């Protein structure tokens, strides 16, 4: 197990990132990890294994649904996509995140000035 502090910090944001990435198209686990890294310009590097507990949790909560399908390389993979509940959760999470980040931004700006 990775140190608790680190995973706690990641937990909320990792969920948000997954929901956001999957909202565009159904993806399998590897693709989700790659997409997060690519889009963030490799600033967000995640331990790929820790992606799966999050995926299972979101699926259990009904925010993601999953189905098995063939990949481009003709291999069977589990594809995750956003459910209706996941869509609305994504919106509230994004809202929440924006408020949080602007708040944090302001505090940093003030401290820097």
């Amino acid at each position, binding site marked *: 197990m990775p140190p608790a502090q680190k995973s706690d910090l990641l937990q909320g944001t990792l969920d948000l990132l997954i929901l956001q990435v999957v909202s565009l198209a159904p993806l399998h686990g590897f693709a989700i990890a790659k997409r997060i890294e690519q889009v963030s310009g490799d600033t967000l590097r995640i331990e790929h*294994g820790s992606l799966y507990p999050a995926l*299972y949790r979101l699926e*259990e909560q009904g925010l993601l649904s999953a189905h098995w399908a063939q990949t481009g390389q003709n291999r069977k993979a589990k594809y995750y996509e956003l459910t209706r509940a996941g869509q609305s959760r994504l919106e509230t999470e994004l809202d929440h995140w924006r408020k949080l980040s602007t708040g944090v931004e302001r505090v940093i700006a003030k401290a820097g000035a």
Partner: protein
Amino acid sequence: MGWLRAFFTRNRTNENMNQEMRLHLDLLRQEYEQAGLPPAEALRAARLRFGSVASARDRCKDENGVAAIESLLRDFRLGVRSLAAQPGFSATVLLTLALGVGVNTAMFSALRGILYEPLPIPNPDRVVNVWENDRLRGTTRESASYPDYVDLRERSTSLFEHLAAIESSEQTLGGRGEAERVTAAHVTANYFAVFGMRPQLGRVFGPGETGVAVLSHSLWQRKFGAAPSVVGARLVLDGAGLTITGVLAPEASFSWNPREVWVSLERPQGMRPRGRHGTRIAGRLREGVPVSQAQAGVTAIMSHLEAQYPAENLGRGGVVVPLHEDLAGGMRPALRILAVTVAGLLLIACANIATILLARASARAPEMAVRASLGASRTRLMRQLLTESLALTLAGALLGAGVAWVCIRLLPLLAPEGTPLIERVRLEGWALLAALGIALGAWALFGIVPALRTSSIAANLRSAGRNTAGPRSHRLLHGLVVFEIAVAAVPVLAAGIMASSFWKLRQVDIGYDPSRIETVRFSLPATKYPWPKFPFRDWPGVRAFHERLRANAEALPGVTAVSIALASPATENLDHARSRRGPAGAASWGAKGSAVPRGGPAVLERHRSAVAPRPVL
């Protein structure tokens, strides 16, 4: 229900999880290879990037509930294995629990079937029997005389919706194939309304009809081939021709009232002497009339009759008894004592199991210590111990249900003959649930304490190898033993009292040696041997028959003496026989040297029985 789904899909879920992660690792490795790393390096880099597969898998299981199910199953398997490893311990606990639960379930099922389940008739609590009593001779429940019945019926219309008269006898059903003895009852037409008995065919007879009869379902099936044409057909009962008006529905045959033919009882007032008893009375109370009020009314009417007819009715009163009470009330004290005894048995069983579990808990402290040192948390150890004792409790309760089932099956065979309503006893779900509840309560109480103790000992790791239980558990054990002895004293005392009562009953001198006496009951058809006129002195036909019978019986080899009597001594009818009539007939009860009972055999009235003492081989 997520855990239920997790339970049934856990194998596939695990397989899917593995496949998913394998693909991920493969894709990572391919990526590194394409970036130019040699295969071995690429694999290593991929693994590094992914992190621990095992940890990811475990955390996934935590998310979807598979982990909880798997550890529960593991506990259960472990529990069963450790129970199987100590078969003596397990069998003791299982059998103790099974007996406790089973016997209690059976006992409380019997209590309900006999005492508390309403009789299968409409508004059963309004149906009562009305008996006469005689305060001069101290009798409590006697049949009434027909004139008393008519007076009671006419003067109590404010109390009773219906008041019916019943005169039962065994009669010979003739005219159809082989003659057969059937239990018949002459009843007034409102009898069927009292008990809510409905016909399935034809109709029941009405007031004023004479020479008509109603058949039971079973007699109709057996003797008339279930033919619908039976309505209006003729029937010969004790030589008298009757017209059948209907057949009763099958649910109108009650175990406590096993009659097969009902004949209309229509008799002008005054045709029967008031001194002749043999009419049973049953009534349906009016809505809202309590038994106490009916009792008061009947008492008042009977004291009027006593004043009006002092010659026949001196000392006679009336008793109103609810039907169910009349049938089964006599069983109540015995059943209650038994129920309390049996409940005590379950408590003892639980205390026993607690003692065994406690003892075993101290014996297992080292094992627990080893488990704890290998990394098992305290909750994990407790959960394992509790799962184990729960498995034991549930298995014991299940076995107990089987014991209850067997007990209830055996009950009609083991119970004294004539135990009322015993055929209604069946396995009651609530009784089983209650017994299971007690067992689970015992589990919670007696399983948790040892589990707490064991796990705390183990977690402290101190007593490993030393195998000591400490003063606290000794105190608990002592308390349990005291409790057990206290509870056990109750059934022991009850059993002692019952045994001594039984012994005293055996010691009562009934005045003769019953082991050498055979009794034969018989009755003569009234058409051939007509009823005598009061006061029964003149009865030539019957007397001649009795003399012939006695002469023939005495001529049989091995018979030393023969007596013909209304009732045999020390049976319920003697009270009546002895008190109503003076000594008569050949008083040969004392043939074997014991005292002749006062009064002795009497002139025959309704029940006639012959008694033929004969030497025992």
